[in-house]
């Protein structure tokens, strides 16, 4: 049938075929009208799920604050959920989360950015075609592998230089998390930079700029909102990362700024408690929701901030 169509290219046949198809027009009209509704319903699935999650988080968090005061939760530096005299201060977890994410961004920010600059501005087409997929492959490694790597390789390696470092510490998972985030920051920043039109580069070069000046004074400012988005996604990823810190940083709820010590992040706390003996209805059970809610607020605020920054410094072209 298809071959038949190919052979006869006369207009008459095409016309009659279109005519035939027109007879089905009514079905087409109905389906065209149905499509938006169907798509809307499908789009609502993810929105409704999110709303459901937030709803559960909020109600259970309320229950937690019936038992533990807001002041204790947000200002307490002691987290001792399982002791005879339980204490629920979230500061050790917030501290652990911020420190591990900061270490990760300290690694991933500069390296990811420099990788993006190389790929977008300096690499030949050939080099880019090889390097970018390899980089994105790195993003596909399961985090448990990274965690294992941090615990069995990075920590022992670091202890050769810092003997007093404990076997579980925040430094190693922080560094490894950074490595994990590099591809994300590099790839997204590269996308933003290479979508800046070539005419900008030409304009700047024609004024006697060096390539480095073009990159830092024209391309990066023009791609700034995309780069901010890449960094925010990177930070969100670091804040939300669970497995690496759970494995390599242990479960000490230390409130300290010494990065050679074990600390716990919010996510790792949720893993520990959810996997342990949190019987439904107990305070420790509800504390899971309060911690998760805090985590959620964290990432939400960061996203809002990032949107603001991206809009404030946007260079439209």
């Amino acid at each position, binding site marked *: 049938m298809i071959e038949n169509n190919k052979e006869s290219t006369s207009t008459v046949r095409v016309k009659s075929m279109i005519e035939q198809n027109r007879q089905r027009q009514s079905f087409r009209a109905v389906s065209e009208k149905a499509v938006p509704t169907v798509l809307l319903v499908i789009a609502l699935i993810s929105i409704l799920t999110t709303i459901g999650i937030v709803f559960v988080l909020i109600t259970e968090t309320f229950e937690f604050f019936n038992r533990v005061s807001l002041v204790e939760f947000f200002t307490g530096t002691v987290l001792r959920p399982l002791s005879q005299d339980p204490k629920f201060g979230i500061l050790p977890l917030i501290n652990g989360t911020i420190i591990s994410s900061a270490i990760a961004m300290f690694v991933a920010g500069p390296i990811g950015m420099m990788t993006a600059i190389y790929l977008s501005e300096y690499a030949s087409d050939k080099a880019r075609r090889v390097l970018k997929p390899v980089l994105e492959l790195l993003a596909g490694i399961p985090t448990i592998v990274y965690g294992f790597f941090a615990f069995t390789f990075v920590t022992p390696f670091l202890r050769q230089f810092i003997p007093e470092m404990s076997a579980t510490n925040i430094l190693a998972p922080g560094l490894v998390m950074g490595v994990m985030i590099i591809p994300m920051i590099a790839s997204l920043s590269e996308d933003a930079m290479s979508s800046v039109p070539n005419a900008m580069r030409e304009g700047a070069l*024609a004024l006697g700029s060096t390539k480095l000046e073009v990159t830092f004074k*024209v391309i990066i400012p023009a791609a700034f909102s995309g780069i901010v988005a890449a960094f925010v996604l990177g930070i969100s990823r670091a804040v939300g990362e669970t497995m690496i810190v759970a494995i390599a940083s242990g479960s000490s709820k230390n409130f300290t700024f010494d990065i050679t010590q074990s600390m716990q992040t919010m996510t790792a706390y949720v893993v520990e408690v959810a996997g342990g003996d949190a019987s439904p209805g107990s305070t420790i059970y509800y504390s899971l929701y309060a911690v998760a809610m805090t985590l959620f607020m964290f990432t939400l605020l960061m996203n809002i901030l990032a949107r603001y920054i991206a809009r404030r410094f946007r260079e439209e072209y």
Partner: protein
Amino acid sequence: MKFVTDIKNTRQEEKQQTTKVYETKDLNLWYGNTHALKNVNFPIYEQEVTAIIGPSGCGKSTFLKTLNRMVELVPSVHTSGTIEYRGENILAPDFMVEDLRTKVGMVFQKPNPFPKSIYDNIAYGPRIHGIKDRKILDEIVETSLRGAAIWNEVKDRLKENAYGMSGGQQQRLCIARALAIEPDVILMDEPTSALDPKSTLKVEELIQELKKDFSIVIVTHNMQQAARISDRTAFMLNGELIEYDYTDDIFQHPKDERTEDYITGRFG
């Protein structure tokens, strides 16, 4: 009769007075295996408007971009021969291309302002060349915008994004941006082809003004434009420089048959 000889005499004098900015000798250029410029010998004179005309693909834009070595952005380009700019061979391997481009500005076919404010667009060039003093920058911005005949239109919105301007304004902004680092030569690659007739007229008038201070090389596919604004015109075809003379002579008494065919509209 005396009048005619007078003109001839002045022209003779002019010829002696004008110095060459560029002297191109046996320039050949290849894009990979495509021979795009063939033995081009092309002097360019100071404080004149030199127009290059010719059909699409004749190499006129390629030649223009060779004058500030922007052509090298295409990875597969290689050249032979020499281009002397003020006595220095710019094709020499150790020649600093940034120095050349600081002295030789360029205006592109499509306006390409940076996605920054009007002020920052103009200040970009001076800034990368080390001028940081706010007062001096303010002055440069004003002078350049005045020089490009756009100051009155934009003086109240210097902080606004350049992309809020019309196409013609953007192109004059790009000319102002080139003026800001006080170049010696300005190369223009079909600067009005993306503009409407009114904006085109403004840019053409501007070019006439600029000629007093700068040497201008303009590539155009619009022959009337070449006739209107240039002092000398070069006709290129298939990578060769066919004919190069005073604009009046080219358009009134072309020596080469191909030039005549092109000018009279027989092809191209």
